[in-house]
């Protein structure tokens, strides 16, 4: 007998969906969160596609801070390219209030039957006779619990993977170093997301502005440490000083985003990794919420099947790998390759492309659409990317 069928480490969107899915199937599930509050501190720009989100949860105005209709992308010389969201599949349709959203998902897991414990962290994992002995620390007290499966949803700093023998270490070219300010007293259109690209603004990444209602917006930056000459915070400070001299910063959010394109395999015996722990953020946009939720769902389903079959081996859990790869694995791989090409592009080229697209209304708000338009305009430049796009 084990204490639990499944222990989920980390109550972000991936962890909560995994716990909810497994609990709905009737498994004994424990969801632990090392912080005292779920959803705090936020480590995210909070943008998410409407269509994908609505597959998992009914939208609720309590955790939707803004609805987005279009995106403006600015090249290094600030030429504007406009993407509209007239077709489904837009990449940023909602800006969430993650503090509320994450708690809502944890509540759904709890309602489904999962036990939730906050201020509880996993501090060690060992396997014995086909089950896992997981050491946890809760309010200063250590205890050892047994479980058939551990789902590691412990974010970019994941330890579960390392304990289980999965190498999750990121290289300097596989992480975006990010800082974001919640700013007031700045001017912006409340249904538009803004992106500033190119090395002038953010080497290896971009600067974003995501509205959160009419009077506040997330203004943030991601840079790649392998090519950045300054800290992410220094680039962002330079930008907001020039662009929003009267702006006030009312919150600071800091984090890393894994842009390696996903692990080759996110399983080992008794263990599956989801979300940022499995490096599932999109290499171009940095978006990770939807892939985290999808992977949480697949991990929950696979855990159920493993419990039914009483097989918790890596060989059986490979079903999880097959599921996430079939869903978004190819896109991660493709976008990693496109990102590598984009990293080689100089600011002058970004400007030329933006000039050629200026004034066009690109009627779909997605990276794929944008890349296709660039491809049409710049076939020579993108001839070697055709295999990645089609």
């Amino acid at each position, binding site marked *: 007998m084990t204490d639990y069928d499944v222990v989920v480490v980390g109550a972000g969107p991936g962890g909560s969906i995994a716990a909810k899915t497994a609990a709905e199937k009737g498994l004994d599930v424990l969801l632990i969160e090392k912080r005292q509050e779920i959803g705090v501190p936020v480590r995210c720009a909070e943008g998410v596609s409407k269509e994908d989100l609505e597959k998992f949860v009914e939208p609720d105005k309590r955790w939707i801070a803004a609805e987005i209709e279009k995106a403006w992308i600015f090249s290094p010389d600030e030429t504007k390219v406009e993407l509209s969201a007239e077709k489904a599949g837009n990449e940023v349709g909602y800006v969430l209030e993650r503090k509320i959203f994450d708690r809502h998902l944890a509540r759904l897991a709890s309602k489904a039957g999962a036990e939730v414990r906050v201020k509880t962290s996993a501090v060690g994992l060992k396997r014995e006779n086909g089950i896992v002995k997981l050491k946890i620390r809760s309010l200063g007290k250590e205890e050892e619990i047994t479980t058939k499966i551990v789902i590691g949803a412990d974010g970019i700093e994941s330890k579960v993977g390392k304990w289980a023998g999965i190498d999750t270490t*990121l290289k300097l070219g596989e992480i975006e170093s990010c800082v974001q300010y919640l700013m007031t007293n700045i001017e912006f259109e409340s249904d538009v997301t803004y992106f500033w690209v190119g090395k002038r603004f953010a080497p290896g990444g971009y600067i974003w502005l995501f509205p959160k209602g009419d009077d506040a917006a997330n203004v943030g930056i991601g840079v790649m440490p392998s090519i950045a000459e300054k*800290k992410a915070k220094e680039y962002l400070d330079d930008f907001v000083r020039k662009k929003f001299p009267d702006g006030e910063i009312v919150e600071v959010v800091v*984090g890393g985003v894994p842009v390696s394109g996903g692990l080759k395999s996110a399983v080992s015996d008794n263990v599956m990794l989801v979300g940022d722990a499995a490096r599932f953020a999109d290499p171009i946009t940095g978006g990770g919420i939807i892939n985290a939720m999808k992977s949480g769902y697949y991990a929950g389903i696979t855990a159920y099947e493993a419990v039914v079959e009483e097989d918790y081996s890596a060989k059986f859990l490979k079903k999880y790998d097959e599921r996430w790869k079939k869903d978004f694995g190819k896109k991660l791989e493709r976008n990693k390759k496109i990102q590598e090409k984009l990293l080689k592009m100089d600011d002058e080229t970004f400007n030329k492309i933006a000039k050629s697209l200026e004034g066009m209304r690109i009627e779909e708000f997605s990276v794929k659409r944008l890349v296709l338009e660039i491809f049409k305009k710049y076939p020579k430049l993108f001839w070697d990317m055709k295999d990645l796009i089609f």
Partner: protein
Amino acid sequence: MKRIVVNRYKCAYCGACVSVCKFDANELVETYLEIYPDKCTLCMVCVKTCPMGALEVVE
């Protein structure tokens, strides 16, 4: 002896440094960052990654 220290006033406990360390020389413990000098090789990857510039090398 050189070692890496965390400026707790700048650190936001985001875990970016933990994700790039090959040697498990740092760890987020609930809401603070612990650095283990005995495991650290001074490769500086964590220093370069920190978005806030919270990690510093001291003698």
